[in-house]
């Protein structure tokens, strides 16, 4: 078989996939994320079974949310991994070898994004499903459980995995934009947590009006069966979160083309 030796986008994705899985730190971070999703769900479900809600509060009890409580924590692990996938290359000098092999540069960013998002989804869909099933089997002891057939439940489980992948891409974009681990992790945590705090200082009418448009409330809407009334709808919210991620990746792409490596 003869094949033409030239750079193609698909080959760059393969290359980035090789890089992704050849680092022990990737395996550790992703294993941590999966353990957080499943483990925290099981732990919190057990806690709620030992202290079941008052009969009056059963109607507002959200068994899906209880079993998926680990998603927000896992998002930190996935987001930080996204940052390190890029900043690790800058710190070790690998980026120069990488960009010398792919001088067009942008395929490297897209290749990393595709390989990382696919890997995160492949692990987090089963993880969210496992967390849900384990959680419900625990909650069933007090008959507090629900099933995937209930409206919005399957969407919330799948949505949790999608949200995790999107946070991972946010980290990746910030890493490529800022190039330093410390700076990009600080920016990631800032984007995830700071807006809610800032909005909390505003008058109630303003904060209620803007809260749903903040990154985490918007993105997390898709992960819950019964969204908070002040947040956007599940897919609208997630769409907005993806738009934020796209803006960060776009800025990163622009910088990657423009700046010296």
């Amino acid at each position, binding site marked *: 078989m003869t094949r033409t030796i030239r750079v193609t986008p698909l080959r760059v994705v393969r290359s980035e996939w090789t890089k992704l899985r050849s680092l022990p730190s990737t395996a550790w971070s992703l294993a941590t994320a999966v353990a957080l999703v499943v483990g925290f769900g099981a732990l919190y479900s057990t806690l709620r079974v030992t202290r079941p809600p008052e009969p009056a509060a059963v109607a507002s009890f959200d068994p899906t949310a209880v079993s998926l409580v680990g998603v927000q924590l896992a998002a930190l692990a996935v987001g930080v991994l996204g940052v390190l996938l890029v900043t690790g290359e800058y710190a070790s000098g690998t980026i120069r*070898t990488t960009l*010398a092999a792919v001088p067009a540069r942008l395929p490297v960013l897209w290749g990393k994004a595709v390989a990382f998002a696919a890997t995160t989804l492949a692990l987090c869909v089963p993880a969210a499903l496992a967390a849900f099933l384990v959680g419900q089997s625990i909650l069933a002891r007090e008959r507090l459980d629900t099933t995937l057939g209930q409206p919005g439940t399957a969407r919330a489980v799948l949505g949790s995995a999608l949200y995790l992948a999107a946070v991972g891409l946010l980290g990746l974009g910030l890493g490529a934009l800022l190039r330093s681990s410390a700076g990009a992790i600080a920016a990631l945590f800032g984007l995830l947590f700071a807006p809610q705090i800032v909005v909390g200082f505003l008058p109630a009418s303003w904060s209620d009006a803007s809260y749903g448009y903040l990154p985490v409330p918007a993105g997390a809407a898709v992960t819950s069966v019964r969204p908070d009334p002040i947040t956007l709808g599940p897919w609208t919210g997630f769409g907005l979160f993806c738009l934020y991620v796209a803006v960060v990746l776009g800025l990163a792409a622009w910088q990657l083309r423009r700046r010296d490596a």
Partner: protein
Amino acid sequence: MIEVAGLTKRYGDKLAVDDLTFTVRPGVVTGFLGPNGAGKSTTMRLLLGLDAPTRGSATVNGRPYREHAAPLREVGALLEARSAHPGRSAYRHLLALAQTCGIRRSRVDEVIEAVGLQQVARKRAGGFSLGMGQRLGIATALLGDPRTIILDEPLNGLDTEGIRWVRSLLRDLAADGRTVFVSSHLMNEMALTAQHLIVIGRGRLLADTGMEELMASAARTSVRVRSSDQDALAARLRAPGVEVSPDSDGAVTVSGLSTDEVGTAAAAAGITVLELTAQASLEEAFMEMTRDAVEFRAPTTEGAKQ
């Protein structure tokens, strides 16, 4: 073939590369020499399209680097000794690079064997010594079987065996008709490796010359001599324009006289010559060339002691 024309790179208010023009031809090893901070690494980054020039152009094999469809086939580069991620194995590092342009997997094993890293190829690159890192960097440069090879300080951190190996590798690559461009800040290292020299200082071209021409014109040749009566010989040799300075091992270095003149003078005085060597002082020629272009310099050794 590497062609650089009017190449200039400014970082803020520092001019790192200042209007460089030179050509690196295939078939010979070309040394790229200059003191630390002279702009060698910057020039190499500009050649590889990693940094964008402020002015001027650089082409490799006839085109700007970025325009090659399979850059690894055209140019193999070693930019720094530690350029692999410390957590990744040498094999995976090379495989990921090979995959970007569809270089076959067996080529990865070939270059690993060529640089002698078979034993450690599956181990994390973070545990590599500087010398092993250099070997991995050279494997990276050879991966695409490129027509042009650019190596930044490839001899740093290598042991004697490694240095000899790199030297013969570079000569073989050049003998194959490839373009080989190797930087160093040590003249003596280059004297044994390169056939052509490009010397820069403070980003400017100082010399673009064949190694043999440089040797022939080396500003001052000196003679190292050891004899049965060093003091008597020194007294006899001293004359205007002749300098005699003792070496640490009991020999003396004489500048301004040829070996013939020193030998004849010793015979006339009845002194037995035990050792007599001509030294083309390339190091001195280089120092002279770059005297005004050294970026960092201790005032004098005396000053440092106070």
